[in-house]
């Protein structure tokens, strides 16, 4: 009975309306879920950036020889990486930042730090993708900072659980320095703790006296701070799209690559040219796809083109929300919704066909005599 599987002409409008309604409802639900997921991701990324910023600002002092060099030095090379690199007194400080070091993650965080340290101590060979060359990892760092005589490896976090950390250090037979980052009133404090794998490990923490003294003063007096960073290479596209848009919206006549480099100079400090170009190109492509920016002057080259933030909102929090909604809509429409539309279509077709069949059955039932005393008019089969 082929004709029974076809939606009749009378039912076609109903089918279309129902399909549109169901897709609309599903889309709205998926977009709302996505908006929440994006907000959570941004907030998680933002917390990492904030911690990196605390360290950067804490070491911004002319009396301290240790200076901020850059974030994530090996990210572009896709090698094991540290989050912040400081340098001074021929010493590099390689700092891995974690939001928490608790029961559920202490083992993996401490083990990662141990493996990173082993890579550097063993001076493994890596590929510097920016330069397109193979070289020893210490040589890579020397190119970045200059002479290196001493290397320090640090785990930094706002939320350490010391009992677990000490236990894990013993388990992994690994000693290291843990910097506890503390926000108190309008200051930040860094409290340096030596995590020892055992009483006879012979590990006494940082070797540099100046560094130890400076850390003592940071623990005692703290330092005023403000957030210095906006993004890192490892930040999600959501965070970059949102947090970059507010300062970029200042360019009423559009911005280009040079404007972008200029205003994000602290985030891009000591980055290789290709790293900046790659991040910018990814940012622009994604934002164009989502309709967050529009091209004002197309010179067929992302780095030369002029772009403008495309939003009816100019007030920062509203602009931020508008961008999050655009990203959510884009990702739902291009991804999951496309897959789900077929499913929704099948379901609606089946519902309409079933209704159609019921109605036909109901029409026939008019001719079937009803049993006495019973009203079965609404119970068609």
């Amino acid at each position, binding site marked *: 009975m082929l004709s029974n599987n076809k939606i009749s002409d009378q039912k076609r409008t109903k089918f279309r309306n129902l399909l549109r309604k169901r897709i609309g409802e599903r889309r709205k639900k998926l977009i709302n879920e996505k908006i929440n997921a994006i907000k959570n991701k941004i907030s998680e990324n933002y917390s990492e950036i904030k911690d990196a910023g605390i360290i950067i600002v804490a070491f911004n002092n*002319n009396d301290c020889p240790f200076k901020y060099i850059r974030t994530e030095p090996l990210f572009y090379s896709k090698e094991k990486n540290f989050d912040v690199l400081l340098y001074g007194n021929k010493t590099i400080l390689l700092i891995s930042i974690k939001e928490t070091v608790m029961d559920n993650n202490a083992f993996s965080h401490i083990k990662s730090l141990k493996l990173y340290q082993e890579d550097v101590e063993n001076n493994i060979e890596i590929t510097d993708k920016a330069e397109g060359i193979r070289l020893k990892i210490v040589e890579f760092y020397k190119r970045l900072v200059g002479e290196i005589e001493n290397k320090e490896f640090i785990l930094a976090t706002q939320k350490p659980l010391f009992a677990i950390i000490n236990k894990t250090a013993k388990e992994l037979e690994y000693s290291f320095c843990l910097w506890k980052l503390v926000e108190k009133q309008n200051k930040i404090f860094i409290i340096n703790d030596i995590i020892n794998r055992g009483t006879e490990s012979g590990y006494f923490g940082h070797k540099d006296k100046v560094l130890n003294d400076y850390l003592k003063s*940071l623990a005692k007096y703290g330092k005023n701070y403000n957030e210095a960073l906006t993004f890192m290479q490892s930040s999600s596209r959501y965070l970059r799209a949102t947090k970059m848009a*507010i300062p970029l919206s200042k360019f009423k006549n559009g911005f280009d690559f040079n404007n972008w480099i200029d205003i994000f100079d*602290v985030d891009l400090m000591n980055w290789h040219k290709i790293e900046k170009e790659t991040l910018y190109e990814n940012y622009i492509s994604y934002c164009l796809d989502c309709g967050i920016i529009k091209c004002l002057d197309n010179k067929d080259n992302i780095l030369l083109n002029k772009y403008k933030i495309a939003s009816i909102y100019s007030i*920062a929090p509203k602009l931020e929300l508008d961008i999050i909604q655009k990203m959510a809509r884009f990702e739902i429409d291009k991804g999951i919704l496309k897959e789900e539309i077929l499913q929704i279509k099948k379901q609606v077709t089946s519902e309409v066909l079933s209704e159609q069949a019921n109605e036909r059955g109901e029409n026939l039932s008019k001719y079937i005599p009803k049993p006495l005393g019973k009203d079965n008019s609404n119970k068609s089969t």
Partner: protein
Amino acid sequence: MEIKNKSYSNDSFIRECDDILNTKSKGLNIITLIFRPSNYNENLIKSFEGLGIQIKNLGEVTQLSMRYLLHKEERIVNFYLTQHPIYEEIYFIYSFNGISDIYRTLFGAVESLSDVYYLWLPPSYFDKLKELILENEGSYMTYFRGQSMATGKGEYKRPMFARKIIYEAEDAKMASEELRFEYGILPQTIEFVIPEVSKFRINKKGYYTLISGNVGVFLDEVINNLIKMVIEDNREIETAKLEVSKINGKEALNLKEIMFELENEIDFEEMKGFIKTMEEEGFSLYNTNLKKGSVIFSTHIVDEKKGNIFSLTSDGKRFTLMPKYKSNFISLIRFHNFLIEKIDHFTKVIYSKKDAIK
């Protein structure tokens, strides 16, 4: 009103203003501005030109002409711009047009530029200047216009009411002190008379009206005294920065914050109201983090009027600020102005000890 179209030096321009003041009995308005561009290629004349203001070069003086419609009739307002001979970031704008013409033209232009602001006078300096002027033999206050500023706190009568007052009498000095003590009213504009010498008004926004007297003497004795008082705070605020410089081919961070301190701290319960007041004044917030207990408040602020962005952290008493994304320090001055006017009259700029851990 337009002055003679010729080339002036600063001195000859002042003489010309004196002539007009004495012969035509027109009050001379002088507006003081602070301008230090983020981009060294910018200049104030170009900024005004960018707003469609007509520019005419008159030697050391630049004529700015603006137009507006009043009752369907076009009015032309002329201003004359000069740079301060000592403080390069200070500019004077002179005009013989009335203050209502100036409000309808120049003030909007100044508000819209990201790196220009009035040389605003905090109440404490305004008071000092008042005392200084009243040291002149026989001088007195004849008029003031005032309003209650920071509301809520204080020992005043019914502090919850916002008040405005215009007072005109020869006991204006005493009346202003009484109204301040009893009702928390601070003068916004004061008129002074120095018998046989001059009569003038000063406004806390940094504009002055010389009604009679000698322009050169007025500049030296009144305006320059005030500039000396406020320039130190402004220059300290200006040291706040977040930038990257190159040292031996490597990039290095250059970061310095500025701190403002309130006399009465804001507690957690008051923070929401504080944020609302900020938003009403054209400061919008993002990346905001507010924690209870001992207040930890951190945020990014967009000065929606000027387009500048800065970050702020506070414990409710101290506010540490840093300009971001090459933003001009002018918005930090505007924020300082906001704290004093809307939150706490006695907000201070805390001077940093170089490189000490703070």
